[in-house]
C-alpha cells in the first residue's frame, strides 16, 4: 500500500512534470515574463498621452515636389506598440473629418529609414494615409524615434499648413484603442527665384606690340618689310591679346589677300610649309620660329587659348583668307599671340611695291 501510494504520487509528479515540461516549450520563462510585463504595463493604455518631441522635416518645401518626409516623435506610454497610424489632413484635430491636403499623395511612399522604435513596415497606404506595422513589442528606446519616407508628393496649397495625425496602437493594423497620439504640421512654400546675368565680355586688342591684358599697345599698325630678295626671307610681326567670358571661348580669324603689286601677286602658302627663299611665299604663324628666327609662343595665364593647328607649328607657315588662326574652347582671360609674317620671292617676280592689309577678327562664342 505504501509502495502503491508512493508510486501513485510519483506518477502524478511525473505527469505534472511532463505537463509542465510540455507547456514550458510553449510558454518559456521569457514568454511569461513578457506576458507579465504586457499585463502590467498595458494597463495604462487607456490613458492615452501625446507623443512628445513631435516634428516633421520636409526635405523639400516646394509645392507638388516629390520629396522625403522625416517624422520624429517620442513614445510616452510604456506599452507594446504594433502599429503607427499616420493620417495626412488639413487640420490636426483627430475626430474631425479628414480633408486631404490638395495635391498631397503618399500612396507611393516608401519607408527608407527608421530609428528608435524600429521594425516597422508599411502595411497600408492610400493617398493620405500610412500605417506602419510590426510585431507588437514594448517601447524600449526611451528616446526619439524617426521614420523617413521617400516618394511623397507635397501638397500644392501654399496658403495653409497641413497636418499629420499620429496614433500608436498595440494592434498591428491601427485598430483598437490608441496609446499615444499627437500631430505634426508642415507647410509648402514658393521658393525665392533669383535672376541675374553676367554680361558678355570680349577683350581684344591688336597692334605691332600689345600688353597681355590689353592695357597698352604701341599703336603701330604698319610695317615696311624691306626689299624682296630671292636669297632671303622678309619678316614682320604683330601682336594681339584676347580674352572673353564666352562659355564656348573665342575664335580669331585672319582676313586679307596676299601681297600684291598691281596684278602681280605673291602666292600665299595654302598648306603649312617651311619658308623657302627663292619661291613666292606669303605665310604666317603664331609661334616662335627658328627658320627664320622670328615670333613668340603665346603668352598669358590661360593656356586654353591656343593657335589653330595649321598656324601653331614652328617654322611652318600658312595663310588662307578667313582661316581661324587661334581659339579657346571656353572662357579665357587673357592670352597674347604674336603673329609672324614671312615673305619670299622668286627671281622672276615682277618688280613693284607689294602690299597687303591683314585683318584679324575675334569672336566670342557665347
Amino acid at each position, binding site marked *: 500500500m505504501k509502495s502503491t501510494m508512493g508510486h501513485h504520487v510519483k506518477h502524478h509528479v511525473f505527469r505534472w512534470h511532463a505537463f509542465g515540461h510540455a507547456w514550458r516549450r510553449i510558454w518559456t520563462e521569457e514568454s511569461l515574463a513578457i506576458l507579465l510585463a504586457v499585463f502590467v504595463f498595458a494597463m495604462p493604455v487607456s*490613458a492615452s*498621452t501625446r507623443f*512628445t*518631441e*513631435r*516634428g*516633421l*522635416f*520636409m*526635405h*523639400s*518645401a*516646394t509645392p507638388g515636389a516629390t520629396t522625403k518626409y522625416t517624422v*520624429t516623435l517620442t513614445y510616452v506610454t510604456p506599452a507594446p506598440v504594433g502599429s503607427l497610424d499616420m493620417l495626412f489632413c488639413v*487640420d*490636426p*484635430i483627430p475626430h474631425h473629418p479628414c480633408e486631404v491636403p490638395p495635391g498631397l499623395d503618399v500612396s507611393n511612399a516608401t519607408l527608407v529609414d527608421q530609428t528608435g522604435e524600429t521594425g516597422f513596415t508599411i502595411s497600408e497606404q492610400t493617398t493620405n494615409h500610412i500605417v506602419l506595422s510590426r510585431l507588437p513589442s514594448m517601447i524600449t528606446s526611451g528616446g526619439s524615434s524617426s521614420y523617413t519616407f521617400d516618394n511623397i508628393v507635397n501638397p500644392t496649397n501654399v496658403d495653409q*499648413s497641413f*497636418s499629420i495625425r499620429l496614433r500608436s496602437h498595440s494592434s498591428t493594423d491601427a485598430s483598437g484603442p490608441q496609446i499615444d497620439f*499627437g*500631430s*505634426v*504640421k*508642415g*507647410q509648402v*512654400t*514658393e*521658393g*525665392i*527665384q*533669383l*535672376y*541675374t*546675368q*553676367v*554680361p*558678355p*565680355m570680349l577683350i581684344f586688342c591688336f597692334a605691332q606690340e600689345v600688353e597681355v591684358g590689353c592695357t597698352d599697345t604701341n599703336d603701330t599698325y604698319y610695317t615696311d618689310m624691306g626689299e624682296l630678295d630671292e636669297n632671303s626671307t622678309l619678316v614682320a610681326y604683330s601682336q594681339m591679346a584676347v*580674352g572673353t*567670358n*564666352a*562659355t564656348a571661348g573665342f575664335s580669331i580669324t585672319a582676313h586679307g589677300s596676299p601681297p600684291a603689286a598691281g596684278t602681280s601677286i605673291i602666292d600665299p602658302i595654302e598648306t603649312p610649309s617651311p619658308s623657302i627663299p627663292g619661291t613666292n611665299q606669303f605665310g604666317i604663324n603664331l609661334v616662335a620660329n627658328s627658320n627664320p628666327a622670328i615670333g613668340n609662343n603665346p603668352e598669358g595665364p590661360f593656356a586654353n587659348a591656343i593657335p589653330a593647328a595649321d598656324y601653331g607649328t614652328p617654322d611652318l607657315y600658312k595663310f588662307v583668307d578667313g582661316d581661324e588662326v587661334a581659339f579657346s574652347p*571656353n*572662357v*579665357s*582671360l587673357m592670352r597674347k599671340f604674336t603673329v609672324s609674317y614671312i615673305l619670299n620671292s622668286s627671281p622672276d617676280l615682277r618688280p613693284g611695291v607689294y602690299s597687303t592689309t591683314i585683318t584679324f577678327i575675334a569672336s*566670342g562664342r*557665347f
Partner: protein
Amino acid sequence: MSTLQSIVRRGTSLTAAIALAVGAVVPAVPVHADALNPLTDRSLTLSSSAPGWEYLDGSGNPTYAPPNSGANGQKTGNYFKFKVSSTAVVKTMSFQYCTTSAGDCLAPGDNGWNSGTRNPDTSTTSDLNIHNDNAGEVSNANFGNIINTSTGDIQTIPGGDISTVNYGTHPGNNYTGNYIVMYNNGGTWTQSTGWDLSVHNVETGTVGAETATGKNNYIVLTNSSGMSLTAGQEVQVLFFASDNDFYITNPGSNEFFVKINTYNDEYDGGNDYLGLSDLAPASEDYIIDGGVTVANVMNHSIRIQTKVLETMQFSVGTVDPNMLASDDGDGVSTPSTLEKALYADTTGLTGETKHGVCDPILGGMSPSDPVNVLRMGRKTAENSLEVANTFATHSFWRLSSNSSAGATVYYSGNTLSNTVGDEIAEIGSTEELPKTGEEQFGLALANGKLGSAADLDLDNDASPDVFSHPVDYTVEATYEQGADDTATTQGVDDSTTTDNSGNSSWHSPRLWPLIPDANYDEGAGTLNGTPTAKFAFVSSSTLIPEPIASENSQVVDCVTGRMRYIANIAATTPAGIYTTAINYIAAPQY
C-alpha cells in the same frame, strides 16, 4: 480643567456637523475657553483638497501635479495657524488627524477593512497617512526666502527632493526642509528653530477590530529649548510635502479633524521625557493649550481640460506687409499698396485693409508681380553683375507656431547657374565678406549678429534680457534691389504700428526666439567699399537642407527672417542669365 480627553469620553458619537458647530462656538464661550485653554483663530490650509488617490493633472499626467500642488492629494502639505491662550514655553506640539472632532479617534480614510485587515489605497479610495522618511526643518538661512516675514505668507515652496520637471507649480528651487514653526514677533514673523518631527499611529481602536486604520495620523514636533509664547500670540506650523522625505496623503473622502495640543515638556518617546502616552490622550500634567479641532472636506479637483491644437503658419516671400502703408488709397477705386499686395482682386473692397499682428509675407507688391521673383545686379544694365561691385537682393520668411519645442528653419537650393551649367561659385559653409572680382554667391540673415547687446526685456524689469535679432531693413543704395523697392519706407510703416496698437501680441519684426546659425547671422551691413556683412552658402543644401536658425525650448511667436543674397563675379565668369531657386523649410517640433 476639562481636557479634550474628558470631552472625548463624554461624546463618542458627535456628528461632523456638531463638531463643526463646537469648533465654531467654543472660543466664544468663556467658561469652556478657560477650561480648555483653547488655541484660537485656528485654521488649517491644505495644499490640496483633492482625495488622496488623485495625483494627476488635467491631462492625466503627473507633469503639472507635483507634491504640494493643488492637483496632488497624495502628497500634500498642511499649514496650521493659531493663537495660543497661555503664556508659556511650548516644547512639544501634537497634531492628531481623526474622523471626529472629539471622542474616540479613528484616522480618516475610506479604504475599509476586509476580515480585520485594512485595505490598501486604490484608484478611488485612500486613507490619510503621514509619510515621513527624512523630514527636515527648513533652515533659518532660507526662512526669509520661503516666508514673507511681514505677512507670514508663504512666498515659495521648498523644492526639497521634488524631482518633477520644472513646470508650473514646481518650486524650482534648492531650498530643503519640510516644516517650519514660526511666531509673530511684534509684526515680524520669526522662525523658531530646533524642532524635531516624528509621526505615529494614535487611534483609539485596532485594525483587527476594524476600528482603526493603522496609518500614521499623529505628528509630534518637539524642541528641547522650546518656544516662548505669550497669550494671544500667533503661531504658524507649516508642513511642506516633497517627493519622498515627507508628505501627507489625504483621505479619499469626507471631512476630517485635527486635534492640536501644545505641551510644556519635550518628547523623546518616554525615555527621559514625555512619551506618546503623555501626549495622547493629552495629559493634564503637561498640556498647555489645545483640544481644538479644525476640519476640511475632500473635494475632487476640478479638472479643466481644453486643447490647444498644433498650429503653423509659414510664409516665404519678397515683401513684408509691415512695410506697406494701409492708408495710401481710398480702398475702392485706388486700393492701397497693402491691399494690392494682399489681394489679387480688389474689386468690392470697401475699406482699407489693416495690418494684422502677424501678416504673412507677400509674394510681391501687387498681384500682377511675378510671385517671389527677385532680380540682382545693376538695374540700368538689365540686372547685370559686375566684376567691380557686389550686388544684393533680399527676401523674407515669417513663421508662427505653437510648437513647444521650437523650430528650425532651413534653406535648400543651388548656387546661381546659367542654362549651360556654368555656376557662380558658392561661398561655402563658412561665412565670408563680399569680395569683388571673385565669384561668390551667398545668403545670410539680416537680423543682427549673435552676441549683440540685449534689447528685449522679457521679464519687464526694465533690464533687457536677450537680443531680439530685429529685422534690419537697410538697403544698400545702387547695389541692392528688391521686390519691395517701391514701398513707402524701407522699414516698418507707421500704419502697421498704429493698426496693431493695443494688441499685446504685436511686436516689431524679429527673429527671437529663433537664434541664427553663426555662419548666417551677419547679413546686415555694408557690401561695397569696406564691407562688413558676411555670407555663406552651400549648394549641397539642395539635397541636405542647411539650417539657418533654430530654437528648441519654446513656441515660435511670429518670427521674421530677412534673407539677404549677394553675388560677385570674376572677369572669367561665363556670360549668361543666371538663376536659382532658394526654398525655405520650417520644421516645428511640438
